[in-house]
């Protein structure tokens, strides 16, 4: 797992400008390897997630061999949640990350070991925002199963990552796990993240990313394009959605490019960490 820092070099940005803009535009009009109109992309993505919502969690387990749980644990570990924090999890429909944050804050062991102010515990607010109501429903159902149906700390909000309905400087933390790939305009989502975060607030993004290691890359490509769509058909009955998924991973900017996009949005101390050789990357940054 390599940890790299991105330094802001204003000069070299100009050189990358043209290809940069081109790739952004291509992300906005790409639906996997297909070309679509910008306005249509979010509708198409919406359809994908409406279809996969009910089997989303099972498919995650099957596709990643259960590893996605470890990745999310790592994400939440990096975040270091604290009692009284206001956190926003975007595109977190089924609540995986949100539940982990909730557990981290309310864990009995943590409360026993550290001096946690009970009053500030009450103030903890974890907002789960997703554009797709089906995904949110799955999440609410899972919350009910855990006994958190009426818990005031978890708030389920339907919203668009590119136009959040939260106030400026209101969030201590912002996470987006496996969601930013599906956003039409990445820079808008980043700008919104910057807007809602407080000073000192952290941005964390967990996303499937690019593998560069030679032999492993080929194995990974083989697995992505041959195995996953078939699994999708077998288990979820939906080959196209999973074809879209693997294609959209290839279309997403690589780690360094994405890191510079985050820095462009105004964030400081932009870093990323590759997990499993680059299959997944956690980008982190701070708003100062």
């Amino acid at each position, binding site marked *: 797992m390599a940890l790299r820092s991105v330094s802001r070099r204003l000069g070299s940005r100009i050189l990358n400008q043209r290809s940069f803009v081109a790739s952004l535009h291509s992300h906005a009009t790409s639906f996997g390897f297909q070309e679509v109109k910008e306005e249509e992309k979010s509708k198409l993505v919406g359809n994908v997630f409406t279809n996969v919502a009910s089997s989303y969690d099972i498919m995650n387990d099957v596709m990643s061999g259960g590893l996605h749980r470890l990745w999310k644990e790592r994400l939440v570990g990096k975040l270091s949640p604290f009692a009284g924090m206001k956190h926003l999890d975007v595109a977190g429909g089924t609540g995986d990350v949100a539940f982990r944050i909730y557990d981290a804050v309310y864990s009995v062991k943590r409360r026993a070991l550290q001096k946690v102010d009970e009053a500030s515990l009450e103030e903890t607010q974890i907002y789960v925002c997703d554009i797709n109501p089906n995904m949110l429903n799955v999440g609410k159902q899972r919350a009910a199963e855990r006994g958190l149906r009426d818990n005031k700390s978890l708030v389920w909000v339907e919203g668009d990552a590119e136009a959040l309905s939260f106030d400026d400087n209101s969030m201590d933390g912002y996470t987006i796990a496996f969601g930013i790939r599906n956003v039409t305009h990445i820079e808008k989502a980043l*700008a919104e993240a910057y807007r809602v975060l407080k000073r000192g607030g952290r941005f964390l993004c967990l996303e499937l990313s690019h593998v560069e290691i030679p032999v492993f890359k080929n194995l990974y490509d083989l697995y992505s394009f041959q195995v996953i769509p078939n699994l999708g058909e077998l288990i979820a009955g939906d080959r196209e959605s999973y074809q879209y998924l693997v294609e959209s991973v290839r279309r997403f900017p690589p780690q360094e490019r994405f890191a510079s996009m985050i820095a462009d949005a105004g964030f400081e101390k932009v870093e990323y960490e590759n997990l499993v050789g680059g299959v997944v990357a956690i980008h982190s940054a701070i708003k100062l």
Partner: protein
Amino acid sequence: MYRTAAKRLLAGGGITTTRLLRLPKLRSTIIPSSYTSGLCTSSIGGNTESPMGKQSVNPNQSGPTASSSTGTGEGQRRHESRKPRAEFQEEQARVLSASLRHVPRLGWTEEAMMAGSRDVGVSPSIVGSFSRKEAALVEFFMDECLQLLMDRIDSGLDLQNLIPSERISKLIRIRLEMQVPYMSKWPQALSIQAHPLNVPTSFKQRAMLVDEIWHAVGDGASDLDWYVKRTILGGVYSTTEIYMLTDDSLAEHRDTWAFLDDRVKDAFDLKKSIQEAKYFAEDIGAGVGKSVQGLMNGVMQTMSRRSGGSAF
């Protein structure tokens, strides 16, 4: 030479040179006002939030509920001049400095750092991004103390009239007195420093400290002696530090200073005894060598006389 090396190492150790420039303000927060025993040469009471230089926080940005609505989110994106990356280091230093005030109550923990971050006006989330969290706070404190010590030495400490052992005692005493306000939580700091992940940095910091003290005492040694001196002084410092943890004596740890003086004396005695042992060994060696040589000469002469005689 050591002084510039120490400064360079300090600057490169994660906290940038900008911190050195800001020191007069930081110094005022390390030692609370109740403990002005002539240690601190600057005035106490400056708050850490006072703006300095290019302060770029807008006051209305830190409130949780700003009046703007979501639709104008993009338009509001500020086109300020790009802040340098060093700002994170500055922010971290500011937060850590403010956290020190909470350490006697909350310990060297994330809670203290979160309280410190609230003091500075930054979200406590920032603490999550410090590497090796509690260690960052302890290391910051150690760096600050070293800097304070160096400043004290520079600003004319009267060392000329003292013999070396007394100079060492005085310097160690000054350094240890900086820790007194945190004495109740110092064992925790020591255990954090002893953690395997943190040992490299804490070892480096102690090495710099010991080096600095020897430099101030006027050390002119080289090669093997250099290491021996620093190791011994490191030992004296550490044992005194640990003794101080359980010292309840009155008059500001009088027992600790007595212990310190004894240890320094022991160290110097040790040095003398080692030297004496060396001379003694040399003498014996010389004596034995002479007698062996005498014996050999005698044997050779006898043999040559005999053979020379018989040839005739």
